[in-house]
């Protein structure tokens, strides 16, 4: 199928009634879950996965991608109204968004956040449309050595860019990898670490880990904080109208951060969170009156909101064109695709152009829906923040358990879910980041396979990596991402 026909068929799916309905469901669910403080986009996607079983893979990905960027879009609402960011990607939004809300300009702040998100998101999708096919055409020449090196780079990059200590992030990654080795080894047929338990032969279901490590662990923290958190919600949102001078002020950061955010999103390891912080710092440095930042600056609100949404689109570039996720969230999306029987990668563009373009095309629609949801309807949607915590907690736990049971029909996996919930809770308690864990769990099997293919080609000699220039570059970059932070005394602070 020619390039243009592919684009056309993608748009056809995205604009079919099914495509429109499910992108709407996705962004709506994403907005809700993103708004709830404590639940992040990974939990949001993981909770939606069971619902997508039996769907056409294109529609499923359209919906789950909607959940992802919807969560990043919607996360800003609680940052502004509650000063309690719904997700980590909107922490920087609270810096200037919440002061504006305190000044009685909550409506204006919400409007700026929604419009910036829309600009960042839409601009990001345009760039995604241009770059993903380009990268896919380069990646088609990649063999197992390049893939091994690239995945290795993704793992080291996410560890080095994670919050907190690098050593802890690396340990988290190694632990995730260890859980990936459980089950029958695909090449030799040897059962590994199953301890005679038949339920473990096929390995641990990735959904169990995603829901346990993220959703359930986040719920544990909600339980602990449920009594303390008595923050007042700004009931009076005020006018949503923006003046011409407001737009003028937004113009600069919105253009710059659309591009910068997108680039950061494409890079392995970095995502919406890092993009939003870098965007904020960047605009503060550039500003003529940096002292206004943190006190309700329009620029300070526009920058992170544009950057995090642009980064979300950017994160789809490696996922769709290489089949390699660069972040925890896209790793969960990859896991969801694998469950549906789709293997993303450079061939996806050739073999499933409808899926490739359908998802991208749906993002335009999704961003328009989000703008509508987040502008005129936001006062009503923000009411979800009033749901009593105890009910919310019980419902999220129930969703997790139904989700796991619906794929395995097996109570053993529910115990595993509980186990990973407890592991995730303790990891968070002692500041071990969870995204490296899930990324290396999902990439683990693929890394082992590509290493085996590489060494089978070379008859067991590691020298093959030296003969492949692209692989060498990736490996050197991977080593640099680990070595450099060791020499950097202080971590970057916002």
């Amino acid at each position, binding site marked *: 199928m020619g390039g243009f026909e592919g684009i056309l068929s993608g748009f056809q799916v995205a604009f079919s009634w099914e495509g429109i309905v499910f992108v709407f469901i996705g962004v709506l669910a994403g907005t809700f879950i993103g708004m709830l403080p404590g639940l992040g986009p990974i939990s949001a996607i993981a909770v939606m996965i069971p619902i997508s079983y039996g769907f056409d893979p294109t529609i499923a990905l359209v919906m789950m991608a909607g959940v992802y960027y919807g969560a990043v879009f919607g996360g800003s609402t609680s940052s502004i109204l509650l000063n309690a960011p719904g997700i980590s990607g909107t922490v920087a939004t609270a810096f200037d968004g919440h002061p504006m809300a305190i000044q009685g300009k909550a409506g204006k702040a919400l409007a700026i956040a929604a419009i910036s998100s829309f600009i960042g998101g839409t601009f990001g999708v345009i760039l995604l449309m241009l770059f993903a096919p380009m990268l896919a055409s380069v990646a088609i020449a990649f063999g197992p050595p390049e893939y091994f090196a690239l995945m290795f780079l993704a793992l080291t990059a996410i560890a080095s860019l994670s919050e907190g200590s690098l050593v802890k992030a690396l340990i988290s990654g190694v632990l995730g990898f260890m859980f990936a*080795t459980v089950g029958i080894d695909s090449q030799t047929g040897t059962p590994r670490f199953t301890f005679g338990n038949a339920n473990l032969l096929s390995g641990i279901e990735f959904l169990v880990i995603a829901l346990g490590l993220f959703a359930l662990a986040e719920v544990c923290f909600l339980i602990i904080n449920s009594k303390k958190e008595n923050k007042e919600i700004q009931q009076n949102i005020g006018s949503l109208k923006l003046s011409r001078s407001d737009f003028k002020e937004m113009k600069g950061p919105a253009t710059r951060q659309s591009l910068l955010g997108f680039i950061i999103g494409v890079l392995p390891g970095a995502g919406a969170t890092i993009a939003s912080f870098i965007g904020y710092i960047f605009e503060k440095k550039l500003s003529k009156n940096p002292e206004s930042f943190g006190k309700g600056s329009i620029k300070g609100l526009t920058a992170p909101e544009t950057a995090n949404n642009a980064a979300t689109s950017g994160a789809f570039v490696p996922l769709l064109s290489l089949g390699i996720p660069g972040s925890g969230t896209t790793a969960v999306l990859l896991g969801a695709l694998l469950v549906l029987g789709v293997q993303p990668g450079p061939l996806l563009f050739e073999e499933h152009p409808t899926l490739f373009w359908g998802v991208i095309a749906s993002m335009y629609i999704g961003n328009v829906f989000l703008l509508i949801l987040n502008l005129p309807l936001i006062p009503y949607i923000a009411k979800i923040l009033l749901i009593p915590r105890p009910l919310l907690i019980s419902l999220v736990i129930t969703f997790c358990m139904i989700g796991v049971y619906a794929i395995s029909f097996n109570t053993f996996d529910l115990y595993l879910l509980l186990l990973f919930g407890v592991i995730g809770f303790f990891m968070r308690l002692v500041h071990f980041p969870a995204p490296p864990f899930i990324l290396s769990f999902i990439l683990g099997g693929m890394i082992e396979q590509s290493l085996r293919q590489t060494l089978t080609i070379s008859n067991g000699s590691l020298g093959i990596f030296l003969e492949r220039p692209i692989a060498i570059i990736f490996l050197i970059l991977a080593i640099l991402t680990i070595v450099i932070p060791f020499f950097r005394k202080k971590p970057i602070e916002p």
Partner: protein
Amino acid sequence: MLKSLNRKIAILLWIIALAYLFFSFNLPAYPYVPVDSDVLPIILGILLFLLAAILFFMKDEVVDKKKVNITQSDLFRLLSVLFLIVIYVILLEIVGFLIITILFIFFCSYVLGYQKHIVNLLTSVLVPLTFYLLFTKLLQIKLPQGVLSFF
């Protein structure tokens, strides 16, 4: 010596690494492949061991401002919820999805201190019912019927 949190975690990780390595070395060998099933696990075990060693000698970060202090009542609520989850899992296939989920949502919210019993009851009946119908009728996924097998 074990006062530092990092040291306690490091020792736990060492135990995990050693146990993992023990089982890795005992994996049966398969002669015709360049990378046998034990190669990667052994590398991972050694990596974890070394990383734990670095952690052992690392100073605990100063995270006072972010420190989560868990009170006794928090812990009690957390453990009660975990206990309810275990009961849920044990009874799910015996009692059936609908009844056990209704009971779970109601009691879980109750344990967490929700006082509006009528709202609670409505939510805990309507949500599982919606899910049950959604899964069994629309998505064709069977959920355990349990004692309501005629339904």
